[in-house]
């Protein structure tokens, strides 16, 4: 009753005290009317907390060594040059890109196959398999370092990027698979069946009908895999000993644990480490929210 009155052109008496009624059709629902300062003030405070550390590292990376100025001026790129060539961040960067992309591809493909099976079939070991996926979440990768090291030593994969790629993929898989199977469950099975009737095979039906609808979910899962493996540190630290095989986080750690830390080089190295993930993040941010709200916490 009241809602109907409120949308009528005559001003609703119950709400007259709020603010002069705007155009009835453009009105925001009342629950959305939060005083602006209650948004901007806490957000502003939090932004300061978020951005100062970023500014700080940018400052150290751009101002000359020994400077104490709070603005990066005069600006110099010496630190970047030094870190990229002398501290072999160029090589580390290449290795990290390689590990990140390979992990992304492997995780997405394996999780897609497994996730499809979990979403669309009932089979004997399904419950046990789901349970194993959940349990694996409690297995700390860091605590399996020694047996994993022994396995990779057995496989002659110590000092090869393959060991890190496999380890990263394996620990990404369970959650990725659960997420993807939830995304697939959200695509009506009848769509696929309709495609079969039209003469598509299961594979073709999947590629043509289901896959395009999974885009936001796959972007979320794939970018997760990339960002995680780009950032992850312990596996690379343990399995890669040669300087020319190491990844960026290991390089950063080396810079940090040096006897006298070269702050400018550390800051420049940090920026190099941040750029790809920040770019990925800026690109996927929109999909991340939709991807999660579709796939999260069901089943």
């Amino acid at each position, binding site marked *: 009753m009241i809602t109907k009155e409120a949308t009528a052109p005559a001003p609703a008496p119950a709400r007259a005290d709020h603010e002069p009624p705007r155009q009835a059709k453009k009105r925001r629902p*009342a629950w959305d009317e939060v005083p602006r300062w209650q948004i901007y003030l806490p957000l502003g405070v939090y932004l300061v907390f978020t951005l100062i550390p970023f500014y700080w590292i940018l400052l150290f990376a751009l101002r000359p060594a020994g400077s104490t100025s709070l603005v990066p001026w005069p600006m110099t790129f010496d630190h970047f040059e030094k870190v990229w060539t002398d501290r072999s961040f160029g090589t580390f960067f290449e290795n990290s890109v390689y590990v990140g992309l390979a992990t992304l591809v492997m995780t997405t493909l394996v999780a897609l196959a497994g996730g499809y099976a979990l979403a669309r079939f009932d089979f004997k070991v399904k419950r046990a398999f789901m349970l194993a996926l959940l349990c694996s979440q409690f297995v700390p990768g860091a605590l399996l370092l020694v047996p994993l090291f022994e396995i990779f030593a057995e496989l002659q994969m110590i000092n090869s990027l393959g060991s890190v790629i496999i380890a990263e993929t394996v620990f990404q898989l369970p959650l990725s698979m659960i997420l993807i199977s939830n995304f697939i469950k959200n695509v009506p099975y009848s769509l696929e069946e309709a495609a079969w009737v039209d003469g598509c095979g299961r594979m073709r039906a999947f590629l043509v009908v289901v896959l395009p609808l999974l885009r936001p979910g796959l972007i979320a899962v794939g970018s997760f895999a990339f960002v995680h493996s780009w950032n992850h540190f312990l596996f690379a630290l343990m399995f890669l000993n040669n300087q020319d095989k190491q990844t960026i986080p290991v390089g950063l750690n080396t810079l940090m644990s040096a006897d006298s830390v070269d702050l400018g080089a550390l800051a420049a190295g940090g920026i190099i480490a941040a750029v790809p993930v920040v770019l990925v993040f800026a690109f996927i941010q929109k999909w991340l929210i939709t991807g999660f709200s579709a796939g999260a916490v069901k089943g």
Partner: protein
Amino acid sequence: MAQAAAVAKPPAPPRRRRASATPRRLPYLLIAPAALLMLGFIAYPVISVFYYSLQEYNPTKPWRNGFAGFDNFVKIFTDDPMFWDTLVFSAKWVFVEVGLQLLFGLALALIVNQTFVGRGIGRALVFSPWAVSGVLTSAIWVLLYNSQTGITRYLADMGIGEYGTSWLSDTSTVFSAAVVADLWRGVPFFAILILADLQSVSKDLYEAAEVDGASRIKQFWHITLPHLKDAIILSTLLRAVWEFNNVDLLYTLTGGGPAGVTTTLPLYIANTSVDAHDFGYASALTTVAFVILLFCSIVYLRLSKFGGENK
């Protein structure tokens, strides 16, 4: 030969029809890659950890290696103060981190879920530390906390505090300093997950509540929070496990110090196996950590009645 090739062609269409009739082996083929990877690189290592936990196993002292029964476990519970210290610190670390991250993440999600000018850029900036690694977080905060050129110097310039203050090397400040650094990176995780879940709250509910004259705080308690319940339970659990297991940040930021006061149990285990090469004992510690983690998770899920009306 040419004929054979021509004969080989026709079977294609029947294969299609069979494909849509759900071949029995297909699901097994589909999960096979994942299952094999997990068997080889999670299950097998876990089993070998259980096995080593009953062994004396130290590559630097091979003459002592051999079956040890429950000696390692007895030592953990009766003769290892480090175990208890690091366990208590782990609990404190996880509790404080997850609690604060949830609180700030929830607040942040509610704020950026409103419509306001600059929402897109606001969201992007607020969420951005999510993508930053533990090591990079350490690098950033090492710069901020540096006693000579860090933030304390500029605070001292303004008359706040003293020159040369180093929060990371003082046992009374190192906990807060590490917590703040990890918060900086951890809050966006909760904010993103909660914001995602907020998208599915039915707007009708709010409108109905509005009609009934419910205040925004009441709407939050009676509509928003119950809706978020499962997401909050699951994300706090995942995060707690993650915070417990993850050693990147503390390893690089404090190295477990000063004087071991920021050593978590996993960090202690890593040191025991990597530096002291005492694999047998480290495996026993791992087993204990794993059991504790699993037990706490089950209790948590039971107590929180996760899923409620779940099938």
